[in-house]
């Protein structure tokens, strides 16, 4: 196990120094530093960009002006202090907190497509913190807190709708698991309790709570702080915030290889090695730290550094209906029926389900998914049979054996992971970014993610969320 934590001994002097010596004048610092190859920052924010506000909207509306770019479009440079692979919520949040909490701004976020094109833009935007294990609860509770203040922090309305989250139980054993979660939650001061079918009906009148349903509702875990959020706004908000601090976002920039030296594998990769940079479709870029935030593509990226991960990739499908007048006030999840549903402010029902039954990297979506989904939804809410499914899509999930992430250092020095999020990635984005930033900046594993280290698999100490997996989302 000792050899798995090599990265923690590594001291990143430059970053540390800058962090402590000059935490404020960040842009100047980045721009003046020749060592990392930064000559001149093209398009760097000269002054603070205008804040979003109603007054601003009116002023711009009157003058017919457009807003400045949400993030700059700048050339890719040849060196950075940190390269983050994957421009989703996790990668962008990591960059944002590196800049804001630690003053590390010579950072590039690379995405092979456009920002938010992976799971961040494909999830069903549910947030909650009523997990099963104390580790999970503490972690997601921090995430929920960050989501709660995000509109203010990022100055973009992420439209967090704290509407309550219901996880239905259709059997005694499911109800027992709900009680288990509720009790763990309560002991950590999370608002979470088990309610009976009548209370379920009062909160969500469209649910069929009759006992002669095929899968009668035996009760539910009710979590009032859970809700939905506008996922794209979270992506754009972090990107905009990171950009304000000098972080660069590079879209259509695909990492083709990770360059290492000294490792026991081919080309200096693997255990004992050290990262020196990445090869991309737009040229080579050097960096002493490379962070893998690529969800479904996680093993493909980590393979480039010679690091094997306990991850399989399985699509998670979702779908949306045409809009109708709003009738569903809360997020409803049924683990045993493999479905979750919420209604957007636009009136669409947004559905998700369980991951596909076999590994693959295909996001085309299947008919079986929509059939199963509709059947299960109608068992729960027979009144919606005439609503129409408008669109279906899929995202790639990085599934781990214990339904918990892999975070922090790896056996390759300078190569860090924030992956293995399975179906929970979006909920965790803010806290994952915050903790990864701390991990990079301090070169120590923060306590909140101690349980999620890669080494736990080789040590045989899995995280207990496995028990709650069946009732996920």
């Amino acid at each position: 196990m000792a050899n798995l934590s090599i990265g923690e001994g590594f001291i990143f002097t430059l970053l540390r120094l800058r962090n402590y010596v000059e935490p404020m004048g960040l842009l100047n610092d980045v721009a003046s530093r020749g060592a990392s190859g930064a000559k001149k920052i093209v398009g760097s924010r000269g002054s603070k960009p205008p804040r979003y506000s109603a007054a601003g909207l009116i002023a711009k509306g009157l003058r017919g002006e457009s807003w400045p770019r949400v993030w700059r479009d700048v050339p890719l440079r040849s060196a950075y202090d940190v390269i983050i692979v994957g421009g989703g919520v996790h990668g962008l949040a990591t960059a944002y907190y590196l800049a804001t909490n630690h003053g590390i701004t010579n950072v590039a976020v690379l995405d092979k497509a456009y920002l938010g094109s992976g799971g961040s833009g494909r999830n069903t935007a549910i947030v909650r913190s009523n997990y099963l294990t104390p580790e999970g609860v503490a972690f997601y509770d921090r995430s929920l807190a960050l989501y709660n203040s995000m509109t203010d922090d990022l100055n973009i309305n992420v439209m967090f709708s704290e509407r309550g989250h219901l996880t239905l139980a259709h059997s005694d054993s499911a109800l027992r698991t709900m009680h288990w979660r509720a009790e763990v939650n309560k002991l950590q001061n999370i608002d979470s309790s088990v309610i009976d079918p009548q209370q379920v009906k009062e909160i969500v009148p469209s649910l069929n709570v009759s006992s002669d349903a095929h899968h009668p509702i035996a009760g539910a875990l009710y979590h009032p702080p859970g809700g939905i959020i506008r996922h794209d706004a979270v992506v754009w908000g972090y990107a905009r915030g990171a950009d304000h601090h000098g972080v660069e976002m590079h879209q259509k920039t695909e990492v083709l290889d990770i360059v290492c030296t000294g490792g026991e594998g081919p080309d200096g990769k693997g255990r004992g090695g050290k990262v020196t940079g990445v090869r991309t479709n737009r040229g080579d870029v050097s960096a002493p730290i490379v962070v893998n935030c690529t969800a479904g593509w996680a093993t493909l990226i980590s393979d480039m550094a010679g690091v094997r991960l306990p991850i399989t990739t399985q699509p998670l499908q979702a779908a949306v209906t045409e809009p109708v007048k709003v009738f569903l006030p809360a997020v409803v999840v049924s683990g045993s029926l493999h479905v979750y549903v919420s209604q957007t402010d636009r009136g669409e029902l947004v559905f998700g389900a369980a991951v596909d039954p076999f590994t693959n990297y295909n996001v085309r979506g299947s008919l079986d998914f929509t059939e199963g989904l509709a059947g299960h939804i109608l068992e729960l809410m027979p009144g919606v049979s005439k609503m129409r499914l408008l669109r279906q899509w899929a995202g790639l999930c990085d599934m781990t054996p214990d339904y918990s992430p892999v975070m922090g250092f790896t056996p390759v020095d300078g190569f860090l992971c924030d992956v293995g999020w399975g179906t929970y990635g979006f909920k965790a984005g803010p806290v994952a970014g915050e903790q990864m930033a701390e991990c990079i900046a301090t070169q120590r594993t923060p306590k909140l993610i101690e349980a999620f280290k890669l080494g736990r698999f080789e040590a045989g100490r899995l995280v207990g969320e496995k028990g709650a997996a069946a009732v996920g989302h």
Partner: protein
Amino acid sequence: MLLVPCPYCGPRNSSDLRHVGEAISRPDPNAASPEQWRSYLYLRDNVADWNVETWYCTRGCRKYFKVERNTATNEFRDPPMPGNKIGGKA
């Protein structure tokens, strides 16, 4: 709905089978190191490419079999339905 080439039944809808996972071999349980054993338990290649995997024909012949599938395209080697191939310019 994939058409899975069961070597016994012939092509079958994937809902008639269960995907067992990547074909892996079991280390000697009495000699394996923790690293080897837990690699066997938890680590998978998870390539986005051709991969040998095991399926179980649940609703059909009830045989376990190995088959090669491209996890990026979901194409099977020597596919039961020829013609899925996407070519160049129309």
